């Protein structure tokens, strides 16, 4: 379709797979997928050594370029993302591939570009037939490297996204790892591709660089003309080609509003997290990796309500006591006296470790995981308990056990903890005499027996994600049943209510860590149910703090009382939404 033909065309809205959130509008630059013609010619016997020399030169150049990309990616995104280019370098060094090219060159007497193209084409077409989706995606790796070799031979520039000079929306059939690794996010406003999935490199890279991206749009690269205005909504997976002025206005207003609200929220950093009528609900942070701790101060969270420790166990070499002490101590020291709650090792289910062998189980989420695994691996568990006790000497550190399902597990864990304390004392090593102990309430059996657990702990922390999953027997990553995952199901609300009531009876504070606490619609319900503290991911803190500051505690209480009487989860959700609409309409706008 020519540019003229597209003039006057109406806007076209396409739905794809949103793989990196964010909204961008700009002029499209379309990269033709097969726009590069590989030169083909026959060669004479005397030219063979020359062609081989050109091939070797191109391999050296390609290796150099990939190393450079790898280096840049490592600086920008860390070694995990850079690791993929190890494989790319091995493709360049693949002796079998190189020998095959040289052999074919000698036999067929054709120029090396066409031979490389043909040999690599055989591999990629073999890969394209692979049934496994994830492995089939790897054809992109081979194609990416061999295309680079061919282009180096033909003297063509390669880094497509890196050659752009003006801000634009990049559109292509597909983006290779080296395309996206080289891109400048000030120039590339968004990525739009015909194919791809959320596990493709382009998607991973776009998310890491915070560039909005929509993939899986089939033939979008042929539908968009160079210079067309394109609007990309990465969160919703929507691409609007030639958006009407009304659409643009709507999005511009929305973008402006979002920007303003987010700007305002950031000013709340040092404000108290309390309702208009003076009810205080502190918000702590959920931390997965130590380098996230800096964001606690940035977003104004109070300490760490959930410090996950699995990252320590991801390496083949298990962390020793000293390593763990250092990590826990540093986290507490960085929190300036605010409490840090360390969750003991929560492996199993979908979380595995390189250094710990857990056998495949038919039902991993109901299997040998979390506290069950720790109590069965006493040696490993005691190293962690000792490290926590030692780090807690003179520091505001608390700890909690994950996935407790009965009181005997708490007793057993506490006994081991006491054993560790005695050992440390007899070894003359400083450790905390007293440490606050909590349990994660994330299984219905624990929620129903909190009164039995209460005498043995200092606080409860409700892990709503798992509690909902186990209560409703819904695997929320299973798309066939995900719609049945309902945080406002009456059973869930009753269980939370019961935990809070028992907590009050035993004067034990109750915290909620989980998606429910980070939801502006559901946080008021939790507060109304009597939850004392919330723990959420740091970037969500300003929004939830703002919601709390616009609430009256009395309204939350009323909402909770109504919810406990209602039977339909949809009705309860609607009530929650109605309260948010009344108290924080701008936040409702932000999330919907």
């Amino acid at each position, binding site marked *: 379709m020519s540019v003229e033909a597209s003039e006057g065309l109406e806007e076209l809205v396409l739905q794809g797979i949103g793989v990196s959130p964010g909204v961008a509008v700009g002029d499209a630059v379309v990269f033709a997928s097969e726009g590069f013609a590989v030169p083909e010619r026959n060669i004479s016997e005397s030219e063979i050594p020359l062609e081989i020399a050109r091939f070797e030169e191109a391999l050296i150049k390609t290796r150099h370029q990939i190393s450079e990309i790898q280096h840049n990616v490592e600086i920008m995104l860390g070694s995990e993302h850079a*690791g*993929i280019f*190890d*494989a*790319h370098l*091995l*493709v360049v060094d*693949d*002796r*079998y*591939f190189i020998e095959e090219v040289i052999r074919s060159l000698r036999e067929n007497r054709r120029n090396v570009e066409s031979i490389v193209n043909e040999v690599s084409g055989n*591999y990629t077409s*073999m*890969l394209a037939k*692979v*049934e*496994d989706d*994830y*492995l089939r*995606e*790897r*054809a992109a*790796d*081979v194609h990416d490297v061999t295309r680079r070799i061919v282009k180096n031979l033909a003297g063509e520039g390669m880094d497509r996204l890196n050659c752009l000079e003006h801000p634009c929306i990049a559109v292509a059939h597909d983006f290779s790892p080296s395309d996206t690794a080289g891109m400048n996010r000030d120039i590339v406003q968004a990525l739009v591709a015909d194919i791809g999935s959320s596990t493709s490199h382009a998607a991973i890279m776009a998310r890491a660089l915070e560039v909005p991206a929509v993939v899986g749009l089939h033939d979008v690269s042929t539908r968009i003309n160079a210079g067309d205005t394109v609007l990309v909504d990465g969160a919703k997976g929507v691409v609007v080609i030639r958006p009407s002025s009304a659409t643009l206005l709507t999005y511009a207003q929305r973008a402006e509003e979002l920007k303003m609200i987010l700007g305002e929220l950031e000013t709340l950093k040092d404000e108290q997290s309390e309702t208009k009528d003076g009810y205080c609900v502190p918000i702590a942070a959920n931390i997965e990796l130590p380098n996230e701790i800096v964001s606690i101060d940035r977003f104004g969270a109070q300490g760490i309500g959930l410090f996950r420790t699995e990252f320590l166990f991801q390496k*083949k070499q298990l962390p020793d006591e000293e390593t763990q002490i250092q990590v826990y101590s540093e986290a507490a020291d960085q929190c300036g006296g605010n409490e840090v709650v360390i969750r003991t090792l929560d492996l199993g289910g979908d979380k*595995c*470790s*390189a250094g710990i062998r857990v056998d*495949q189980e038919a039902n991993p989420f109901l299997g040998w995981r979390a506290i069950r695994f720790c109590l069965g691996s006493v040696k490993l568990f005691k190293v962690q308990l000792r490290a926590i006790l030692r780090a807690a000497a003179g520091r505001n550190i608390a700890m909690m056990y994950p996935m407790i399902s009965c009181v005997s597990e708490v007793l057993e864990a506490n006994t081991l903890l006491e054993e560790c304390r005695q050992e440390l004392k007899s070894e003359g090593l400083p450790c905390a005499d007293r440490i606050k102990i909590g349990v994660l309430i994330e299984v219905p059996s624990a929620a129903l027996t909190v009164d039995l657990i209460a005498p043995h702990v200092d606080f409860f922390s409700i892990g709503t994600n798992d509690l909902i999953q186990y209560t409703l027997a819904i695997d929320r990553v299973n798309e066939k049943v995900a719609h049945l995952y309902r945080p406002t199901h009456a059973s869930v609300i009753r269980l939370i209510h019961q935990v809070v009531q028992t907590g009050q009876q035993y004067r034990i504070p109750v915290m909620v860590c989980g998606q429910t606490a980070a939801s502006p619609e559901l946080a008021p319900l939790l507060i109304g149910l009597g939850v004392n503290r919330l723990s959420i991911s740091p970037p969500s803190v300003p929004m939830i703090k703002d919601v709390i500051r616009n609430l009256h505690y009395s309204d939350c209480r009323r909402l909770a009382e109504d919810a406990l009487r209602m039977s339909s989860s949809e009705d309860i959700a609607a009530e929650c939404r109605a309260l948010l609409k009344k108290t924080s309409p701008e936040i409702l706008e932000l999330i919907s």
Partner: protein
Amino acid sequence: MGDTKKIVREFTVENQYGIHARPAALLVKAAGKYSSEILIGKEGSEVSAKSIMGLLTIEGHQGACLSVQTVGEDAEEAMAEIAELFENKFFEE
């Protein structure tokens, strides 16, 4: 010529995403250290563990059963290192 040995073992791919680029890279790096020939086969097709492009085409998805053959003077050592990778799920999870 020295002592040529031949060892054959079977492995099940246990890591979630199978032999994708990163595990394949680990295999190639490990195989490259040995003088022995190292072949990986599945359902009649066979590739060299020293070729990443070959490995990527073998379709080693999770649950796939692959046969590994090492032939050469250091066949035992080579097999031990390859076995370690499979048994540790390529250190992925």
